[in-house]
């Protein structure tokens, strides 16, 4: 059969394997685009309001890290400012995961060997992955363009936006494929490529923040760091303004060079081998691995670290962005009102701002705690809990170890977020007050996060097979009803169901900790119940 004839079934099998995953990625990304463009119409419908928001970025350029290069206050330009960088980030992650999954992932699982033994040999499957990835990004580009057009934006700008997102995805497809050549495990390859995608996002944000604003504050020329990043290239197409797709040639060019490299590497190495030698582990265990709690900590440390990075950032932003606050009050009353709704009527606008950011920290802490419970479930399901429980570790102590690690995760995340907030407050007018408010806000999040830990443990003991979906669902519902419920005008009782709704609010100089103590009590009771009940429960491996 001709190589092309062989390529078709290889691409088809990839598409089939990814059918659910890619549909979710693409629909999710396009959905975000749709939400952002719709928000421009509803929340920022007034051109003068959009202008005032863009001018805020002159005072607090840090906000640009999460947005994009301002390119004018038209509806299309503003939508691009709000969401384009984030859409590119999604495209990058989708593409690198796709690249690693179908190359290194297959090699690691020895599936690649089965295919390489057919006439497809070693290189054709990689070519099929390239075709599959480019097609996926093409579909993504079309979906994003349609989402922009669905909100009534003009076709040319929408098409350029879609192409910019798709081209960024293709560039990162190349990055993912190279990473897969470098490392022996898909875990390492994914770690490198996710780091590169995030770096591209942050470098671009830095470039935007350091850039030069026009006199009216509505436009900004990005500084040189943005030119190093594929996401920066995507922004330079200036959709709806210049509509110039030529910078995307850089992304395509980068992809061509990287993919060329991949084929050179691939033809030079054995199947299953990697360019960088695999890192050998320790021959003997360190002192940390002396008991089941140490093991639980070791298994969770990576996840806790990544949640902690988010916590430091959120904490730092909570205080760094306070200079914005006064400006918001006068320039963007709609946003000020929103913040006030979250923090309650007694809060000063600055406090409201800090509280809002720390409610995000609370979600992060709850997520990290729940992840410890999910890890316990994975250990049980994969059979690696069995050898531990066949030693003199009682079932209760085993689960207690994961509960302890979950509580530690909450402490680590809140302490680090407070640390981030302290650093950020150094720049504010009144560092002491700002710092005190941040510390109280961090502490106030602990009870709600611990309630989620307790609930997760109870689910783990009563319905082990449902642990992971129920834990995520609890967190999502809690965050949604507790933090956004009031904004969306949902009934009070629904809002009150969420632990986050009862977190103490450090506002107006006085803090009512009652809700916090109640929740601590509930968390302790739930955890104790779960640990005791674990003594009566069998190991539930299958499922």
């Amino acid at each position, binding site marked *: 059969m001709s190589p092309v004839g062989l390529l078709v079934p290889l691409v088809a099998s990839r598409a089939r394997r990814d059918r659910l995953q890619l549909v979710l990625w693409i629909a999710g990304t396009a959905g975000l685009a749709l939400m952002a463009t719709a928000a421009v119409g509803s929340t920022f419908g007034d051109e003068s309001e959009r202008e005032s928001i863009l001018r805020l970025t002159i005072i607090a350029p840090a906000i640009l890290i999460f947005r994009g290069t301002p390119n004018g206050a038209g509806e299309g330009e503003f939508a691009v400012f709000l969401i384009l960088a984030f859409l590119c980030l999604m495209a990058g992650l989708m593409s690198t995961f796709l690249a690693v999954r179908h190359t290194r992932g297959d090699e*690691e699982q020895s599936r690649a060997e089965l295919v390489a033994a057919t006439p497809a040999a070693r290189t054709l499957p990689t070519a099929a992955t390239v075709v599959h990835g480019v097609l996926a990004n093409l579909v993504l580009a079309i979906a994003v363009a349609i989402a922009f057009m669905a909100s009534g934006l003009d076709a040319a700008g929408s098409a350029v936006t879609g192409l910019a997102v798709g081209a960024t995805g293709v560039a990162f497809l190349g990055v993912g494929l190279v990473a897969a050549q470098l490392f*022996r*495990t898909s*875990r390492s390859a994914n770690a490198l490529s996710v780091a590169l995608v995030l770096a591209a996002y942050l470098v671009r944000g830095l470039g935007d923040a350091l850039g030069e604003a026009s006199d009216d504050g509505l436009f900004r020329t990005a500084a040189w760091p943005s030119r190093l990043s594929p996401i920066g290239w995507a922004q330079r197409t200036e959709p709806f303004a210049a509509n110039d797709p030529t910078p995307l040639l850089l992304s395509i060019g980068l992809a061509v060079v990287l993919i060329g490299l991949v084929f050179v590497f691939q033809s030079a190495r054995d199947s299953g081998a990697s360019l960088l030698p*695999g890192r*050998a*582990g*320790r*021959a*003997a*265990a*360190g002192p940390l*691995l*002396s*008991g*089941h709690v140490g*093991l639980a900590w*070791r*298994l969770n440390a*990576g996840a806790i670290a990544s949640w902690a990075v988010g916590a430091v950032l959120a904490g730092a932003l909570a205080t760094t962005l306070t200079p914005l606050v006064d400006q918001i009050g006068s320039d963007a009353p709609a946003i000020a009102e929103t913040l006030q709704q979250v923090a309650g009527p007694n809060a000063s606008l600055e406090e409201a701002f800090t509280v809002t950011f720390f409610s995000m920290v609370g979600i992060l802490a709850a997520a990290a705690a729940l992840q410890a419970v999910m890890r316990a479930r994975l250990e049980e399901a*994969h*059979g*690696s809990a*069995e*050898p*531990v*429980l*066949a*030693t*003199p*570790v*009682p*079932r209760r*102590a085993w689960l207690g170890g994961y509960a302890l690690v979950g509580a530690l995760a909450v402490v680590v995340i809140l302490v680090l977020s407070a640390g981030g907030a302290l650093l950020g407050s150094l720049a504010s007018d009144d560092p002491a007050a700002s710092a005190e408010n941040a510390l109280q806000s961090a502490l106030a999040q602990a009870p709600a996060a611990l309630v989620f830990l307790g609930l997760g443990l109870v689910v783990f003991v009563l319905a082990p097979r449902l642990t992971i979906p129920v834990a995520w669902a609890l967190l999502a519902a809690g965050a949604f009803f507790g933090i956004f419920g009031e904004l969306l005008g949902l009934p009070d009782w629904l809002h009150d169901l969420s632990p986050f709704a009862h977190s103490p609010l450090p506002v107006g100089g006085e803090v009512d900790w009652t809700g916090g103590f109640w929740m601590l009590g509930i968390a302790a009771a739930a955890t104790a119940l779960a640990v005791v009940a674990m003594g009566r429960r*069998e*190991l539930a491996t299958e499922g």
Partner: protein
Amino acid sequence: MSTVISIRGLEKRFGRTVALDGLDLEVAQGEIHGFLGPNGAGKSTTIRILLGLARASGGEARLFDRDPWRDAADLHRRVAYVPGDVSLWPNLSGGEAIDLLSRLRGGTADRAAYAERKARLIEAFQLDPRKKGRAYSKGNRQKVALVAAFATPAELYILDEPTSGLDPLMEQVFNREIDRAAADGATVLLSSHILSEVETLCDRVSIIRAGRRVEAGTLAELRHLTRSSVAFVHVPGQESAVEALDGAHDVVVNAGRVQFTADSDRVAALLPELGRLGVEGLTVAPPSLEELFLRHYGDDPAMADGAPAASGAGAEAAR
């Protein structure tokens, strides 16, 4: 001698599936006990109950004359376990996993001696302890579990198909370690499919099927349950004479030879009769365990003499 494992009428149900249906099992101290049965017969379920990882639905299981569910943690000080399908932590190296499990079992108190045992076992099993868990093949994961089990001496070794995935050389290393443990007076419950392994190692054997014990005894006792096979060069007319002999069964003519099976305790009495017939090229093969196993492993439970008629529990095993 005292009894280490004592199981009577043990039952285990998972919803409507019956995994154990009145199982009996006795293992005396210092004995290497083969635990045999087809896939799905309930071997792993029995082991999980003995380890307190699952709770019995009925009947009684005792380990060192204590309740394996209630006193699990305490009993585990005396037990080493190797699962049938070893799953390791993907980001822990094999050496780390061995140390962790040994520390949990309290086997590292005598540091120098432990280090020596670990080094000796890693050398004997030719294991690379620096590899991460996800990088090991099935056989190497099995070795990690075996090294962890033998690196801390135990009174009872519970081994669930411990040599699956090992090469023949490593099986010999395994056999040596079992001998070493047995010489120290340890008791071993060895679940296995490998006949030669059982014949080499085990003092006594229990065969289970569909959640019940169908055979138990020493290997010599079990051999008596099967027949010897006898064959000689075919001369027309002789087969009918053989069929008339007392104790001869299943007479067939195959590839120019007359073949039949004889009750093992009748072989000596049959020989003069065959001499009178003047048979040539006579061969007598001793009873083989393989035949016995195949009878119990086979699809048709009725073939297994003495086995209870398949009950509801047969569904899983009869697949």
